[in-house]
């Protein structure tokens, strides 16, 4: 029996972890962007830049369009944020310690991530404007392509643990992290993670060729919330990646939560670097690569991971 947390603490802990992660993502993004563009990056400026942008958006009015689906439009960022929070909640930050340490953690995580498609599509659809609508449909193609990839590599990580609980998966990596045990796992997972957060090279629904796509009609608080929810999703998938492939909270000296935070940040930094160094992939090409190359590789990852687990099992 796992200790259960009070609802208030659960919400506070998840919220604080997400907020810290989102801010760290924004600062990292500013620094890496400054370096790549050759403008240079000053720490103080990078720390302040996200706050400035948020303040600008808070002071801006919200845009409206002709006959939008107002309820869905308000719901889309909220849904994305709620799903990111669920993703974050199943990740343990200490032995037996998770906001929602359920036995089928991977299944719940997968279910939440599958609904991301709904949130992004709603955002695209509800403005009743052509660029967001095309962006929304683009994301459906993208989501249906990375979805299998995402779940297959997580299932491979569950094989040695004999359990779908994220806590057990972390503990199964006490001697050897999954990133070494299943070398295909983490790279494939990161592709799916970028896809889930429509981030960097997989920023297809928000692409430049759609003048911003699903966010083309957003302004003010609505835009701020959409960006925050997107980065929340990025943090949540990075945290899950840290738990499933980098040994989660395990590590010497520091407390478990600190190790999880460090590993999550490392993955976020990788994804931020990818955003500034990798070109955006055309959607058709991504779909093709997922089905013809990456999903077969993920299946290979499952069977190689299974073989390794059988061989190593006592």
């Amino acid at each position: 029996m796992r200790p259960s947390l009070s609802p208030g603490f659960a919400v506070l802990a998840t919220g604080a972890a997400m907020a810290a992660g989102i801010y760290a993502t924004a600062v990292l993004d500013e620094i890496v962007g400054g370096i790549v563009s050759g403008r240079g990056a000053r720490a103080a400026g990078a720390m302040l830049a996200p706050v400035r942008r948020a303040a600008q958006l808070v002071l801006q009015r919200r845009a409206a369009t002709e006959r939008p689906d107002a309820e869905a439009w308000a719901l889309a960022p909220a849904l994305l944020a709620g799903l990111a929070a669920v993703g974050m909640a199943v990740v343990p930050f200490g032995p037996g310690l998770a906001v929602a340490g359920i036995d089928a953690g991977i299944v719940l995580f997968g279910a939440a991530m599958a609904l991301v498609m709904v949130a992004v599509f709603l955002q695209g659809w509800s403005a009743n404007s052509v660029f967001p609508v095309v962006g929304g449909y683009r994301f459906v193609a993208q989501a249906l392509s990375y979805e299998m990839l995402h779940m297959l590599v997580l299932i491979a990580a569950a094989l040695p643990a004999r359990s779908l609980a994220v806590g057990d998966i972390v503990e199964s990596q006490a001697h050897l992290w999954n990133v070494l045990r299943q070398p295909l796992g983490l790279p494939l997972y990161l592709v799916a993670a970028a896809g889930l957060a429509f981030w960097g090279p997989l920023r297809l629904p928000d692409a430049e060729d759609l003048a911003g796509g699903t966010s083309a009609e957003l302004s003010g608080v609505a835009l701020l919330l959409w960006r925050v929810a997107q980065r929340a999703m990025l943090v949540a998938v990075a945290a899950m990646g840290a738990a499933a492939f980098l040994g989660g909270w395990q590590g010497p000296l520091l407390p478990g939560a600190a190790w999880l935070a460090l590993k999550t940040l490392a993955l976020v930094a990788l994804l931020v670097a990818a955003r500034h160094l990798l070109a955006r992939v055309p959607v058709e090409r991504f779909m093709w690569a997922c089905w013809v190359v990456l999903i077969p590789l993920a299946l290979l990852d499952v069977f190689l991971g299974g073989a390794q687990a059988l061989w190593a099992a006592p």
Partner: protein
Amino acid sequence: MAALGAALTVFLAGVAAFLVLRWAGDALSPPRPTDPHRVPFQGGRPPEVHAWSRFHVRYYAMTLIFLAFDMEMVFMYPWAVVFLEEGLVAGVEMLMFIAILVLGILYGWREKAFRWA
């Protein structure tokens, strides 16, 4: 059950927080759209028709392959838990199942289901 309740609480709290923030943002700087403001952005010209339409989803063939794989995922969750107890037999059984599905991918590839333009 408590854990599932916590997950649900966190989800609802996230959704509610964002809805409240949106409402608060509207209260702080109320939207004042005029009719021309509402015209969707297409680069400076108003649209002729509404964007909502029966959209030609050209990747429909891929969605069918996805369905097949999504069903397989349902079997794979419990399989992952018992895989080590059942050993090689479970591995080979799943391999056969997956092999049939991969034939679907190969067929889809040949039929250009993963391209649309």
